[in-house]
């Protein structure tokens, strides 16, 4: 009995319940939901679609989790997505050989290096100048789309480059390349933060920046690093998005992706107040968001109601996770509090 109670108290309980409920709803409406067929040596199916389309959100949410864990927030990821797509597409479109692997690799490299600069900028404002994160990243969020438009000169840049298309729409070993990239990034983040002390340091900075500084943690460097990491994740997501549609649209690429990412983090049980975070929770949260979008199509909810439906689910999850509701839920189940293992969630 206690085991069951502990289960419901786990931070991952409600996110998993939401995800399972959504999947069950999908299967109930479309019995063939889980069927995966092989076509041209690739896997096809609704679940694969969720994985493929969810990859950019997962990446952005991954970076966002670490930023939020330090008690920050990064609003500029949508703008970084637009900039990196714009930069890569412009380089490829302007090069004499848009189809060569070398061109694509250099375009990708330039985009990622530029995202390092953008991330450092955010990190500088937050950690060195001490500006509130929400405000500091608001600057790049506003100016970033202008920069992206400056790069594309206000046009939608289309590219026809087979190697570039692989990033967002290609397949390796039957799996979408985008989800493999997202998976690799996730694994890197998980190993770096959970197998070393880095995760602990990030959490301590989030819980009390001043105390951790006094304890000898270089909080400035850590804060700087998470913003750079977040920008790199966003840049890779931007490459995926522009590669998937073989075009860079400075206006609409990555629009509202910061919202999806923040919601994924919140649904995954990481508190916006900083401190303890769960990478696995974020992964589940990102899947919840993506499955929600797919559910709208399978269930046959008219496309125009999608956003209302999404908003209502998000509100419901947020209310469920609010301190007030949590306190009330826990009061009803006065079971002995078993010490919960911390920091193993990823």
């Amino acid at each position: 009995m206690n085991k069951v109670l502990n289960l419901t108290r786990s931070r991952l309980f409600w996110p998993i319940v939401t995800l399972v409920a959504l999947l069950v709803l999908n299967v109930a409406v479309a019995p063939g939901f889980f069927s995966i067929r092989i076509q041209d040596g690739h896997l096809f199916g609704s679940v694969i679609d969720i994985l493929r389309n969810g990859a950019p959100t997962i990446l952005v949410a991954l970076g966002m989790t670490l930023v939020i864990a330090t008690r920050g927030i990064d609003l500029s990821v949508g703008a970084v997505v637009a900039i990196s797509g714009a930069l890569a597409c412009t380089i490829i479109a302007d090069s004499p050989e848009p189809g060569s692997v070398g061109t694509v690799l250099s375009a990708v490299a330039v985009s990622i290096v530029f995202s390092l600069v953008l991330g450092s900028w955010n990190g500088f404002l937050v950690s060195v100048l001490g500006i509130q994160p929400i405000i500091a990243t608001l600057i790049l969020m506003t100016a970033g789309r202008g920069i992206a438009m400056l790069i594309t000169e206000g046009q939608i840049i289309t590219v026809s480059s087979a190697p570039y298309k692989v990033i967002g729409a290609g397949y390796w070993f039957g799996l979408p390349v985008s989800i493999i990239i997202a998976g690799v990034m996730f694994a890197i983040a998980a190993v770096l933060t959970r197998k070393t002390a880095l995760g602990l340091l990030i959490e301590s900075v989030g819980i009390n920046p001043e105390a951790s500084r006094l304890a000898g943690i270089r909080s400035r460097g850590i804060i700087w690093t998470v913003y750079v990491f977040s920008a790199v994740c966003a840049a890779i997501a931007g490459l995926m998005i522009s590669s998937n549609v073989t075009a860079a649209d400075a206006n609409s690429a990555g629009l509202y992706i910061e919202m999806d990412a923040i919601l994924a983090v919140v649904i995954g049980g990481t508190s916006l107040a900083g401190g303890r975070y769960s990478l696995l929770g974020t992964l589940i949260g990102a899947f919840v968001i993506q499955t929600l979008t797919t559910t709208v199509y399978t269930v046959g909810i008219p496309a125009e109601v999608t956003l209302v439906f999404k908003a209502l689910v998000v509100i419901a999850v947020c209310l469920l996770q609010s301190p007030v509701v949590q306190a009330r839920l826990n009061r009803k189940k006065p079971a002995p509090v078993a010490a919960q293992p911390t920091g193993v969630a990823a």
Partner: protein
Amino acid sequence: MTTTPAPSTLIDRLGVARFIPSSRFSSVLVTLVLLIVMFGIGTSRYRNFASPQNIANLFVDNSFLIVLAVGMTFVIITGGIDLSVGSVVALSTMIAASMARDGWPPAVVIATVLLAGTTLGLLSGLVIHYFKIQPFIVTLAAMFLARGLCYVISLNSISITDTWFTAMAQTRIPLAFRLNITPSVIIAIIVVIVGFIVLHYTRTGRTVYAIGGGEHSAMLMGLPVSRTKVLVYAISGFCSAVAGVLFTFYTLSGYSLTAVGMELDAIAAVVIGGTLLTGGYGFVLGSLLGVLLLGIIQTIISFEGTLSSWWTKIVIGSLLLVFIVLQRVLTARRN
């Protein structure tokens, strides 16, 4: 997300704050000087820039943003933020356009729009206060909800042919020789005056500042914190709905995708106008100056002709940076 500034930051250590005069109005003064400088640049570069009509047009083209900024000032002074305002503007234009198309009398249309906006703001406020969820997340969800409701009403743009709305859009009120304004400007100015009086000369306004200064202390002082905290979001919702009505007059249509990112313009105007994003400090008239500064930048860019419109975003971003750093310096000094 309220971090206490660590004393180890660059600004504190350099001690730049000592060289800047500490006054309640420093930040607003900078805005005013910048406004005058921008105006001077415009006047020296382009003929007709300083014409009275061009100045009047600053108000005509930004009347909705002025109203939004007034509502946003209330929310930001309490230390909160309202991200839903742009979507509420879009929702208001959709409600107004669809009801006008179905032949409802204008009074009913406007009453419905104002009620819808205020209700949405009120609900956000209630959730923020009673469920203790961050304003940022709640108004984000409200933003999705309002944008989604737009799509439910219609996916396409609805144009307005109603005679009263057309009259409101086309009426020009003559002020002097060859100088005229629209009724929207008068509504915006009334909103500014009411906002100014409520914020600076009433108990409610004082409570708004007290909450921003420290919610707990405000509560211990016996101020009606819950009521006021919910109220500011209702005020912001109401202002967004009014701005939506003005925007409907301006564009004479309703469209789901309109006003995307307008919340950022409103927040930028408030910040540039000298309101501290951490709360407790700010002026309604400062926000008005902020909107005018954004408007003048837009006018210069359109007068320049060769500059592309996306420069506006970059310039607004740079201005935001300057003012945020300035705010940081001023708070460092006060501490």
